[in-house]
């Protein structure tokens, strides 16, 4: 099974967590991205996500491979929602397991940062007032990957 899931169904965090459990791992770090009620000062009523699934899964797998190599973690999973999400919904879930906590934290942070910059996933925000708009990821960090967007 792929370590990366793109799905219209809510993220099944219990199953993801179980898939990561292994007796040599003492550290489990998770990041969840939730839909916020405001973005850049505007009140958000909901979001539509769409993804180019095949490329998103391939790029997500590459990101996890990079995290394994850079930080020596044991394993990781990434799940991203598509479709219509409401405020409070989980848009993305990243889980990392490792013998120790330092690598787990650093790899989890690396994966979410790269996922936001590199996965071909798009977000249209709907506001309480005014026209909906496609949102671009904020500026990429200095050490960005070749594939990352500049904008």
């Amino acid at each position, binding site marked *: 099974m792929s370590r990366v899931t793109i799905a219209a169904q809510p993220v099944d965090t219990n199953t993801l967590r179980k898939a990561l459990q292994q007796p040599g791992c003492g550290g489990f770090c998770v990041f969840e991205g939730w839909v916020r009620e405001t973005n850049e000062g505007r009140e958000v009523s909901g979001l539509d996500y769409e993804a180019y699934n095949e490329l998103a899964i391939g790029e997500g797998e590459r990101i996890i491979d990079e995290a394994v190599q850079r930080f020596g973690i044991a394993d990781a999973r990434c799940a991203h929602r598509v479709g219509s999400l409401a405020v409070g919904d989980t848009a993305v879930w990243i889980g990392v397991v490792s013998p120790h906590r330092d690598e787990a934290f650093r790899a989890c942070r690396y994966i979410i940062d790269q996922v936001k910059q590199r996965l071909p996933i798009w977000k249209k925000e709907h506001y309480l007032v005014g026209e909906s708009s496609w949102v671009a990821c904020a500026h990429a960090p200095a050490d960005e990957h070749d594939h990352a967007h500049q*904008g």
Partner: protein
Amino acid sequence: MTSVTVEYYAQLREQAGQGRETITSDADSLAALYGELRQRHGFRLDIAQLKVAVNAQFRDWQQAFADGDLIVFIPPVAGG
């Protein structure tokens, strides 16, 4: 002439009025192909704001493409 399938996402999908089309082109690079489609559909995104993938792999804009390729232009992303 080369026949390829192009998929559109996000604002490109909205501006093209469709998610997917099969086209023929004699453009000699992915950049030239985007130029043609931009003119046809009135895309507002400049090539500098996009990336391009062929058969689910990122590619350079100067590369050519072949019959049957699946080409996707990637607007600025915003996962998470």
